[in-house]
């Protein structure tokens, strides 16, 4: 494995990308989960698929080198995030309605562009379920830049984002620019999703943002610890998932998600056992 890792550039690209998305996915995911926006990640990933299909179509028809599926996917994802925000303010009483609208819109676009590009091919299969060999050096650099952006913004606006997530009304009363910060946040989410798609795939990208957090929330004390555990769980899932995916020639999306589900079950079970024993000692 190590030998191959040093021989093949694509394995290095994949591994480094995996480590980066294992960091920013669960990191941003913690905010996504506590703000009850988990489904937005799903909607955005389907819009990203629409963008990817558009990119594949353009590549095939016109061979425009700068319009790679990675960038068109990212573009669609960011535009989709803006639409979700617009729709949420249009349907104030039915804010969750924005999600099925955007999600089905994304799938609709995907179907159209996929058929225009003459149907399914292996590339698309990789986008759906992830791949260990799909990350180019250029993609890796883009993902490095996305990671730096995400970390910088989250670090700068941590306390405002936390306040907004915990109690939006209080934040607004206190003069926090809720709308602008929320907008920034949703754009970041779109960026993280488009960065993660090559490895975990469209259908499972939201899992990387939510499952480690779901496990972490069971056992962490406080918000910072929740973030820390989420990132640790995310990284473990990515590393184990990539290695097993590579060995068994399975798309890594499947193995990464199954690893995080396994961690989730372990924490739920572990917490029960822990409670059982601590309660016993209290009675003594």
């Amino acid at each position, binding site marked *: 494995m190590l030998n191959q890792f040093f021989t093949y550039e694509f394995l290095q690209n994949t591994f480094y990308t995996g480590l980066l998305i294992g960091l920013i996915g669960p990191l941003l995911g913690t905010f996504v989960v*506590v703000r*009850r926006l988990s489904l937005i990640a799903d909607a955005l990933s389907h819009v990203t698929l629409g963008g990817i299909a558009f990119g594949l179509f353009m590549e095939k028809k016109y061979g425009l080198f700068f319009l790679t599926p990675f960038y068109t996917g990212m573009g669609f994802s960011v535009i989709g995030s803006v639409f979700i925000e617009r729709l949420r303010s249009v349907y104030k009483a039915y804010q969750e309605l924005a999600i099925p609208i955007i999600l089905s819109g994304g799938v609709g676009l995907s179907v159209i562009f996929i058929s225009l590009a003459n149907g399914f091919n292996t590339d698309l299969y990789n986008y759906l379920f992830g791949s260990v060999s799909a990350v180019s050096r250029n993609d890796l650099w883009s993902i490095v830049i996305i990671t730096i952006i995400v970390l910088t913004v989250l670090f*700068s*606006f941590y*306390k*405002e984002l*936390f*306040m907004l*997530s*915990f*109690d939006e*009304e*209080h*934040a607004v*009363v*206190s*003069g*926090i620019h809720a709308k602008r910060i929320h907008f920034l946040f949703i754009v970041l989410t779109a960026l993280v999703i488009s960065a993660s798609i090559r490895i975990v795939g469209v259908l499972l990208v939201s899992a990387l943002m939510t499952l480690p957090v779901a496990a*972490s*929330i069971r056992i*962490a*004390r*406080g*918000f*910072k*610890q*929740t973030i820390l555990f989420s990132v640790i769980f995310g990284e473990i899932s990515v590393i184990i998932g990539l290695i097993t995916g590579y060995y068994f020639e399975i798309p890594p999306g499947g193995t990464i998600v199954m690893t995080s589900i396994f961690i989730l079950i372990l924490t739920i079970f572990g917490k029960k056992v822990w409670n059982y024993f601590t309660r016993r000692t209290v009675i003594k």
Partner: protein
Amino acid sequence: MTSPIVRMQHVSYAYESKHALHDINLEIPTGAFLGLVGPNGGGKTTLIKLLLGLLKPQKGSIELFGERIEHFKNWNKIGFVSQKANSFNRGFPATVKEVVSTGLTPNIGYFRFFTKQHKQKVEYAVDLVGMKDYLNTNIGSLSGGQQQRIFIARSLVSNPALLILDEPTVGIDTENVQKFYDLLHQLNEENNISLLLVSHDIGTMTKHANGIACLNKELHFHGDTHSFANLSENQLSNFYGHPLQVVTHQHE
């Protein structure tokens, strides 16, 4: 004489065509413990929103700490505990320390970070409401009354001179309501924080507050608790616009 904390003169406010407040004149002196009572839809929440600068009066003027509200900048002098404060997401993974820290977030400002002094302020505020032992506990695992204390600490952490509480005892059991008012008295008398307490519970108000303002679109009564308690039931019912039965408590 220092200027009063709040001075409202001839303030009116209407939502579209519906009058919410009409010609309100209200002064809150330093050190007050004022209970704001009145029927639902009587404009209590509107009045608070005006005081917090969330709404602008369509007529009249408001002064806060002797300064016209349009020019007022020291918003950290006013703490606010919302009615909705205890309807937050109970599964939210945040410690007491983290929640109380959010009270400082607007003061610190963008692109600045918490310092040691801020942390001390947080610990002091939590200590003030008697929750020192729970600094690192998740907020969701506290009882309703304890959570309410934490939300008060969140408002206290920026060191306000006036604390506005909107229906703070909704959803808290009787025993804890007593403890809660003990805390308010302590803040009012020992820490010199003026209080404006909104409630529909006239009985408890007359027991604890030292002034009452009765609001139903107009300010029907504003005076000390003693003279409010001496109002006849008829007069009260007139304020409310419907018959009313009240058990008032005289101060000992």
